[in-house]
């Protein structure tokens, strides 16, 4: 059901953003409430996920950390919506805000959760796959970091129009995203070792969700710094899909655990 919902919502989201019917105020309302809705759905799904684990162990703690991170994201999205819709604050000018503090905080448990999943897998005794792939991931990450530094971080640092706090927040997001997406990509690779087996689906969906976030955040950092990001930008779709796919990952995990326990 959630998969169908994701597909339908994504299509509606893209169509509406392209058409922007109702004018700027409706667009703002839709643009601000969709991430609140999608992050809330993810929070509910992830809550039920970690509740499916009966004992406190690596697996449960990993999913609890993912839940906490996404909950902070939900707080951030809600705060952003309240500030922009309720208090009529131009969030493109009011940066960083309380919402950004919540978003920045979210990365910490998200990274920790992903790292724990990888560490838990490493302890499992199952094969890690080809070292060559890890070398490619490491080299690619380095290239991405260098490109990010050249096209984004250095120009931000050199910008005399922004104050230091603003620059710090602009730079925090892409760096934190890169640090989060690396374990997500590694987990995605690990899932390929299991083919289409049940165990691979939750981690695979989780990885896809974080890749969506990273792509959206990097594009946002660039557009935001150039001051050309606004309500109704299509990159928002990546955030919405990211939240829902992460929620879906949680539901797949819950289903897996419950089906094994029921046998």
């Amino acid at each position, binding site marked *: 059901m959630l998969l169908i919902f994701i597909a339908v919502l994504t299509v509606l989201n893209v169509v509406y953003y392209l058409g922007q019917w109702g004018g700027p105020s409706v667009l703002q309302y839709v643009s601000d409430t969709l991430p609140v809705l999608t992050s809330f759905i993810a929070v509910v799904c992830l809550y039920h996920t970690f509740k499916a684990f009966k004992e406190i162990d690596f*697996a449960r703690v990993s999913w609890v950390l993912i839940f906490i991170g996404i909950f902070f994201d939900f707080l951030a999205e809600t705060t952003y919506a309240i500030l922009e819709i309720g208090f009529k604050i131009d969030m493109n000018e009011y940066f960083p805000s309380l919402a950004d503090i919540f978003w920045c905080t979210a990365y910490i448990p998200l990274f920790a959760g992903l790292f724990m999943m990888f560490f838990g897998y490493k302890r499992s005794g199952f094969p890690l796959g080809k070292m060559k792939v890890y070398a490619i991931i490491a080299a690619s990450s380095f290239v991405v970091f260098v490109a990010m530094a050249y096209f984004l971080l250095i120009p931000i640092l050199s910008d005399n129009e922004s104050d230091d706090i603003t620059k710090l927040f602009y730079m925090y997001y892409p760096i934190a995203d890169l640090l989060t997406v690396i374990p997500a990509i590694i987990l995605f690779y690990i899932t390929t*070792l299991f*083919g289409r087996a049940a165990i691979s689906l939750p981690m695979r969906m989780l990885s896809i969700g974080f890749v969506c976030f990273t792509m959206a955040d990097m594009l946002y950092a660039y557009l935001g710094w150039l001051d050309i990001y606004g309500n109704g930008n299509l990159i928002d779709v990546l955030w919405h899909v990211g939240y829902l796919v992460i929620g879906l990952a949680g539901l797949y995990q819950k289903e897996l655990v419950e089906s*094994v*326990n029921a046998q």
Partner: protein
Amino acid sequence: MSSYTNIYAQKIYEILVPLIGDMMTKGTLKSQAAKLGINEESIAPVHLPALAEELRRGLVAFLGSDAAKAVASKIMSIR
């Protein structure tokens, strides 16, 4: 679907393959049997507790302790 002539190996395979896939199941069975100094076709009831315990530890990362124990119990109760 692969098959073993050894009934215990085959039953363990059937328990694990929906969870971890064909390639990983065969690889895991081979490596865990080797740790016990046997091959897959030599698995006997006396080996089941050790195999179940190793597989349980491996599955905890994906399923949590409870569900991993459930899988191990299924393996232990193979007749």
